[in-house]
């Protein structure tokens, strides 16, 4: 691409970004409610219908993770990396079991977060505060993944311009300030309108990539026959690793605070269920696009573009490199903007959820005298601040291994499963047992991750066992369940009046 082309691409990107920002601010007026009320700011006043719920679910769940990190993982690890998109149907089947039930409880009892539910269910403020802290911290690496995605898009677009490394930093800062302002003023409503635009552009980008790249490499059959075997099937010794990694993501998916937030924003349980039922369809173009991590090896122009970057950074640039080398500049600009806001919208929604947890389940608990308006204001400010905190996590994982950001965060968030998922169906667990189980499992999980990576940058979350490698999140969850059950059984039952 020549300089004029690069200018054209960048102009389209900037114009569309401006439209996105306007949509975000317009979101504040959309089905106007009282934005000084936390429930209204964070749940869009529970006014989202089927259509917008579907878009927000898509925006929340199909993030830079699916668009950039999975192709990267396929590029680096071959077919094994495909686990990161394969589980989608299981994610929504599992969500269908408990999220609509949680929605009904939330509506009846006025819950906004999972911690609200836990506090009411197990009558323990300590437990609810503890789980809120776990939720906030767990989201940080996941948000770092989105930041890595934003950075990758800008890096690819600005490559070759004078002082590219500086432009990239500046652009990232500007995008962040706009996002923070955007989240601050409009809450979930603004994010929802942004989500519609994001989804449309991401769909266009993914479908176009598949339609152009597959024929250009002579079809899937031709490409896979000439690629090394590791791109067609996984090594059977990794079956357990594949299976437990999928299971870990399936269980963790709807325990994320922002996913619970977005789900509780649905206007009815039925609409929420229909949104879940449709969601796996979103994964069809996504899975095909994720295969580009393998097919890119058959596209010489994209490979030569990638060779300009260090190996540890190439994976995350697979999709941007195909867009830049195989499409007209204006289209590359449009598609890259889709990928960019594909990281931005989820980051906004995650930050909103963190702000909620901090204000409502921590500050308000510790200082009950805080006014409703004060709580909402803390939530808004915190949601802006957490985005910057996540920046610190960016350097813990090399970009090509970006999906590890998710898997690290999931080791923490999956520990909410006994309290939130099992808690919906039984109150047999004791709050002290849940606290002990969660704390021990997180300590064990974090230690395992650090030790398998020799206390250096994280490139794996699998732990070698005699049976085969197992995803650490699942091992830690087993520890959690064991401790929770044993301690619950040991504590004498108090008579419940």
């Amino acid at each position, binding site marked *: 691409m020549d300089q004029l082309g690069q200018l054209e691409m960048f102009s389209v990107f900037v114009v569309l970004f401006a439209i996105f920002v306007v949509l975000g601010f317009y979101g504040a007026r959309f089905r106007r409610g009282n934005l000084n009320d936390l429930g209204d700011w964070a749940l869009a006043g529970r006014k989202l219908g089927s259509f917008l719920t579907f878009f927000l679910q898509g925006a929340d769940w199909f993030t830079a993770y699916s668009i950039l990190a999975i192709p990267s993982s396929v590029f680096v690890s071959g*077919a094994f990396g*495909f686990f990161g*998109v*394969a*589980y*989608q*149907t*299981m994610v*929504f*089947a*599992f969500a*269908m*079991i*408990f999220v*609509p*039930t949680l*929605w*009904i*409880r939330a509506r*009846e*009892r006025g819950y906004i977060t999972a911690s609200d539910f836990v506090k009411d269910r197990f009558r323990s403020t300590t437990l609810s505060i503890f789980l809120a802290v776990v939720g906030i911290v767990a989201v940080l690496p996941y948000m770092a993944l989105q930041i890595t995605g934003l950075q990758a898009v800008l890096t690819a677009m600005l490559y070759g311009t004078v002082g590219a490394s500086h432009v990239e930093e500046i652009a990232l800062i500007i995008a962040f300030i706009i996002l923070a302002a955007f989240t601050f003023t409009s809450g979930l409503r603004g994010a929802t309108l942004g989500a519609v635009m994001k989804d449309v552009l991401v769909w266009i980008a993914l479908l176009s990539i598949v339609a152009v790249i597959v024929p250009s490499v002579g*079809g*899937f*059959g*031709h*490409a*896979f026959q000439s690629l090394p075997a590791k791109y*067609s*099937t*996984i090594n*059977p010794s990794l*079956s357990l690793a*594949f*299976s437990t990694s*999928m*299971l870990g993501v399936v269980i963790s998916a709807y325990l994320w605070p922002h996913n619970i937030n977005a789900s509780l924003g649905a206007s*009815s*349980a*039925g609409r929420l*269920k*229909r949104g*879940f*039922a*449709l*969601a*796996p*369809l979103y*994964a*069809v173009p996504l*899975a*095909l696009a994720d*295969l580009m991590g393998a097919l890119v090896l058959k596209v010489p122009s994209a490979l030569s573009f990638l060779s300009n970057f260090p190996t540890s950074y190439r994976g995350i640039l697979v999709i941007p490199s195909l867009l830049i080398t195989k499409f007209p500049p204006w289209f590359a600009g449009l598609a890259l903007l889709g990928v960019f806001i594909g990281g931005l919208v989820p980051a906004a929604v995650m930050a909103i959820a963190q702000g909620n947890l901090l204000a409502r389940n921590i500050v308000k608990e510790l200082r009950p005298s805080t006014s409703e308006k004060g709580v909402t204001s803390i939530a808004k400010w915190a949601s802006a601040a957490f985005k910057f905190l996540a920046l610190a996590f960016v350097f813990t994982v090399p970009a090509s291994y970006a999906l590890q950001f998710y898997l690290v965060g999931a080791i923490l968030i999956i520990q909410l499963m006994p309290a939130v998922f099992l808690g*919906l*169906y039984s*109150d047999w667990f004791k709050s002290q047992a849940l606290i002990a189980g969660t704390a021990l499992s997180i300590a064990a999980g974090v230690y395992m991750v650090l030790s398998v990576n020799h206390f250096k940058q994280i490139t794996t979350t699998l732990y070698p066992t005699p049976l085969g490698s197992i995803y650490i999140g699942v091992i830690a969850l087993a520890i959690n369940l064991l401790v929770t059950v044993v301690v619950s059984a040991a504590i004498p039952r108090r008579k*419940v*009046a």
Partner: protein
Amino acid sequence: MKRDIYLMAAVTIFIFAAYLWPWYNSVKPTLFGLPFFYWWVIVMYVVGSVLLWVYASVSGERGLSRSETQGREGK
């Protein structure tokens, strides 16, 4: 209520059996040149979506556990 639980259990078991364990880890049969490993997963998105839609339609606004208005437990 009971019927919802049985239906959801059947749908969930089917979906998890279909691909939690990578028994479909082979190249053949291919579909449009895609190895079985990939196309099986993609076909299951569509099949799973239809099954989940059936559950969503049958269960309507109901949840899978007794809600507060239908009878409080505990307290």
